[in-house]
C-alpha cells in the first residue's frame, strides 16, 4: 500500500508538471486533455466549464486574450487519497505576466480532484482560489 501510494504520488506530481507544461505552451487542447471527458472546471469567480469541448473553448479564450503572455508555476502542496483511484490535491499556484504589477497576476491555491483511469491520473474537478 505504501509503495503504491509512493508510485501514485510520483505519478500525480508528474501529471501536475505536465499540465503546467501544456498550460505554459498555451496549448488549449493539450490542457483540456488533462481532464476526464466530463471534467468540471471552476474559475476564481466560480464560473464553470463542463466537459472537454467547453474546457478547450475556455482555455482557447484565455490563452488568446488576457493570459496570452502568462506563465504558471504549480507546486504540489499536499495529496490526500480518498480511495486507491481518487485523490484530492492542493497545489500552490503562481501566475506571472509581464504587464502585471510586480509581474505577478495570480497567486493562490489550486484544489483538484483526480481520478485514475486506465492507469492514468486525470482531473475530474478543478477549483482555483486567488489570494
Amino acid at each position, binding site marked *: 500500500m505504501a509503495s503504491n501510494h509512493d508510485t501514485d504520488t510520483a505519478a500525480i506530481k508528474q501529471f501536475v508538471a505536465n499540465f503546467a507544461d501544456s498550460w505554459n505552451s498555451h496549448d488549449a487542447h493539450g490542457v483540456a486533455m488533462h481532464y476526464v471527458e466530463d471534467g*468540471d472546471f*471552476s474559475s*476564481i*469567480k*466560480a464560473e464553470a466549464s463542463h466537459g472537454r469541448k467547453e474546457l478547450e473553448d475556455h482555455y482557447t479564450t484565455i490563452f488568446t486574450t488576457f493570459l496570452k503572455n502568462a506563465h504558471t508555476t504549480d507546486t504540489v502542496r499536499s495529496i*490526500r487519497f*480518498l*480511495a486507491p483511484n*481518487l485523490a*484530492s490535491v*492542493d497545489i*500552490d499556484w503562481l501566475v506571472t505576466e509581464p504587464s502585471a504589477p510586480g509581474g505577478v497576476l495570480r497567486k*493562490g*491555491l489550486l*484544489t483538484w*480532484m483526480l*481520478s485514475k483511469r486506465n492507469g492514468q491520473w486525470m482531473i*475530474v*474537478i478543478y*477549483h*482555483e*482560489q*486567488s*489570494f
Partner: protein
Amino acid sequence: MRSDAGDGVLRAVIEEIKNQEDAMISPRLKVALAVSLFLAFSSGLAWAQMASKMDADSAAIKQCVAAWEDAWNRHDAHATAAAYVEDGEFSSTTGVPSHGSKELEAHYNEIFTTFLKDAHRTDTVRSIRFLTPEIASVDIDWQMTGARTRDGKDAPNRKGLLTWVVTKQRSGQWMITIYHESVF
C-alpha cells in the same frame, strides 16, 4: 438507460409474438418472454432504486450543509468542528490549514471570539458530484455579513464558494473530509 434497454428487449419479444399471430407460442418463446419481462422489470427497479438512493444522499448532504451553517451561526465551535470527520481538513481563503478535530475546534473558537463574533453566514448548495456512492464533491455559494477587520472595524460583506469533499459514514451520515473556501 437500463430500463430503455429492457424496454427494447420487451418490444422485440412483442414484435416476435405479433409475427407469429396465428402460430402457437412455443415454450421457448414463453421462457424468453418471462425472462424479458423479469429483466425489464428488475433493471428498471434497480435504476429507480439507484436514482432514489442518490436523491436521498443529495438530501442528506444538503442537511449536513444546513446543520453546519446553523452551528456556525450559533458560533458553536465544538458543533461546527463536529461536522468534520476525525482527521478532517480545513483550508482558509488564504490557504491556511487546520487539521483534525482538535485544531478545527481551536480554529473555530478563535474566529468566533474575534473578528467573526458578530458574523452571520448564508450557505446555498450549488452542485453535488458523486465520485463514488460514499464520496461526493459539493460546491456551496456562501455570503457573510457582520464580519470585522482584525482591528475591530466593520468589514465589507463577503461572498465566495465553499468546495467540500464529504464522505458517508457507517451511520449513514455525511461528514466533511476536506473543506476549501474561496472569496471573490
